[in-house]
């Protein structure tokens, strides 16, 4: 059994390596147009946001709609470190992620007692409060934003951090800690009486989600030269929520697919300036009407599906026996 799992790990690494290698090759040879590169980076950042939000919304079942707030914390913290304090980029990313995680922890502790729509509106409120706080700090440029951020984020950074995020959250979910989170989504009271410290796991999911949103924010800030509080407004949070729901609540691969697809659609629609948002709106409505459970539902598309098909096993729990 150890062997099978190791085989799977090797396979995962192989696929990731192949993906990385082929794109890296294109970049090195100068065949990848800078515009495609930007959108590739955006896809990575959006995947980080969507997957981390899915941990909170889809897996733990806590309805959060203030995810852009954590992105803002990560973006600002990291930018202050590189711009104002001349610290190295890796330290800035780490600090940004940790700051976002800390804020997530502090917010999560009191608010995660709330349920459903009430939690949603509280997280929305916190997202807006974070925005207002940045608007009022002149040190980071206030409402007009912090400019002059060095352009350090590269495809390498984005690729490895995105892969790290996805693997981290996937492994988390497939552990007893992750299952504890899922049990909260399924039935909080039953989870509690099965010995699961629901508050701890809700806050843990929230903190981990915020951590990766912070990392995504740091990458974002160091690619786009300037950040301002309004970039991280509630519509941005909604964008990520849409990715999660569209991909399927509780499906990591779903989030990855949806983040990729929506980023590409958004880029394709840039040309259709006036009707861009109309098309986007129609797409949302139509997809939800036809597939309210999202593209993937709570299923995962993974290499192990092929494996299982080969062994004639059914979908469901990953019993690696």
């Amino acid at each position, binding site marked *: 059994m150890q062997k099978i799992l190791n085989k799977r790990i090797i396979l995962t690494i192989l696929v990731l390596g192949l993906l990385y290698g082929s794109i890296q090759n294109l970049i090195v040879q100068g065949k990848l*147009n*800078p*515009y495609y590169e*930007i*959108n590739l980076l*955006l896809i990575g950042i959006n995947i980080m946001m969507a997957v981390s939000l899915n941990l909170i919304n889809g897996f733990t079942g806590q309805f959060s709609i203030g995810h852009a707030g954590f992105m803002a914390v990560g973006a600002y913290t990291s930018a202050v470190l590189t711009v104002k304090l001349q610290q190295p980029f890796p330290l800035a990313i780490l600090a940004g992620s940790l700051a976002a995680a800390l804020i997530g922890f502090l917010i999560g502790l009191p608010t995660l007692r709330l349920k459903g729509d009430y939690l949603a509106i509280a997280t929305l409120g916190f997202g807006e409060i974070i925005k207002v706080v940045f*608007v009022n700090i002149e040190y980071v440029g*206030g*409402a*007009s*934003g912090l*400019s*002059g951020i060095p*352009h350090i984020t590269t495809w390498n950074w984005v690729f490895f951090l995105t892969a790290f995020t996805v693997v981290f959250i996937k492994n988390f979910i497939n552990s007893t800690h992750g299952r504890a989170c899922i049990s909260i989504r399924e039935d909080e009271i039953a989870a509690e009486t099965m010995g699961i410290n629901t508050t701890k796991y809700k806050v843990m999911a929230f903190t981990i989600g915020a951590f990766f949103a912070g990392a995504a924010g740091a990458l*974002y800030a160091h*690619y*786009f*030269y*300037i*950040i*301002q*509080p*309004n*970039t991280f*407004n509630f*519509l941005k949070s909604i964008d990520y929520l849409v990715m999660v729901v569209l991909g399927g609540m509780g499906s990591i691969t779903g989030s990855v697919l949806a983040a990729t697809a929506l980023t590409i*659609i958004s*880029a*394709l*629609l*840039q*040309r*259709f*300036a*006036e009707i*861009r*948002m109309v*098309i986007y709106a*129609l*797409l949302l409505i*139509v997809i939800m*009407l*036809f597939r309210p459970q999202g593209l993937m539902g709570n299923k995962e598309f993974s290499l192990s599906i092929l494996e299982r098909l080969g062994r004639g096993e059914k979908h469901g729990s990953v019993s690696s026996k």
Partner: protein
Amino acid sequence: MKLSKKVALILVLAFLVTIAGGCGGSKPAPAPAPAPAPEKPKEILIGANFELSGNVATFGISAVNAIEMAFAEINAGGGVNGIPLKLVKVDNKSDTGEATNVATKLITQDKVVALLGPVTSTNVLGAVPVATQYKVPLITPTGTNPKITVDDSGKTREWAFRTCFIDPFQGFVGANFAINTLKAKTAAIFIEKNSDYAKGLAEVFEKTFTEKGGKIVAKEYFVTEDKDFRATLTKIKAANPDVLYVPSYYEQDGLIAKQARELGYTKPIVGADGWDSEKLLQIAGAKALQEVYFTNHYSPQDTDPKLVKFVENYKAKYGSVPDALAALGYDAAYILADAIKRAGAPEPAKIKDALAATKGFVGVTGSVSIDDKHNPVKGAVIITFDKDGKQIFKEKVNP
């Protein structure tokens, strides 16, 4: 039901495929290498990177409408040096990251020779590094933040230009007018917190006003989305200033003037070119506009045929009177066309040099010369309103 669902799905898919196809088609397919002979190109591609959706879409669309109109006029007159201009219009969602993204797309995908836009300073700051990196000139019609054309070390950014006032000038003129003409001793400033334009003007106004011996008795803020300013205005009124300085755009300005008057504030209100719009009168009403003054590039009583024609054409085409953003966008388009003409060839570097050498260009917002900081040098006028709320000329100020 089932069937109609399927049909709908197919339609949507077809729609998407068409769009995707359309995009693919419009891409400059791996062209057989850059045309070797400097033959006359068929058209000159200009990129428009504007806020066409999102929270400042109003401004972006206003500016881009005027630019499209200007391009149509230029092309009707035979284009530039006989080559028609083509505007590649792309939406940046009023988002700085998207502004960077769009600028990259326009330059590397569509191969435009110059960029127009965006309108807000923050978004322009997201696009300027791209223009610099790929060496394509960028003109913002309305980005007032000094940092756009000058970097942190004080060096002029080679590829960035603007055709609007930078913050200092209008704030300076407004403060002088308040002190000298209105004999104000105290002033209150009401600032749009998330507008670089308003913040910049307010800063200079405050500096000039206090240097000349005036006193700022209240400094308050609002955000663009606000519609109700009564609470803050009540606070301002209680400070009893001789003059209230509000350097924002007409929608907020109009509401502020109206609500200030409703709360019994009767003293002068001073603003800047953002006040210039026919809608201001409709929003505020003539009564509220008594004792209101603002600095502007030109006077509407000006019978300059160019201006009259612009206003008429815009009205005919878009059904509304152009505002300051439209006028500035229109001029930016013409200044660019003029530079391309003088450059002789539609090549980014030549256009950039020609832009930097712009002297005495006469547009609808006055005469423009570009200085060594890539800012326009324009004269200013002070406008006020008559009993019916019609704009009238008050005095002229030269730089």
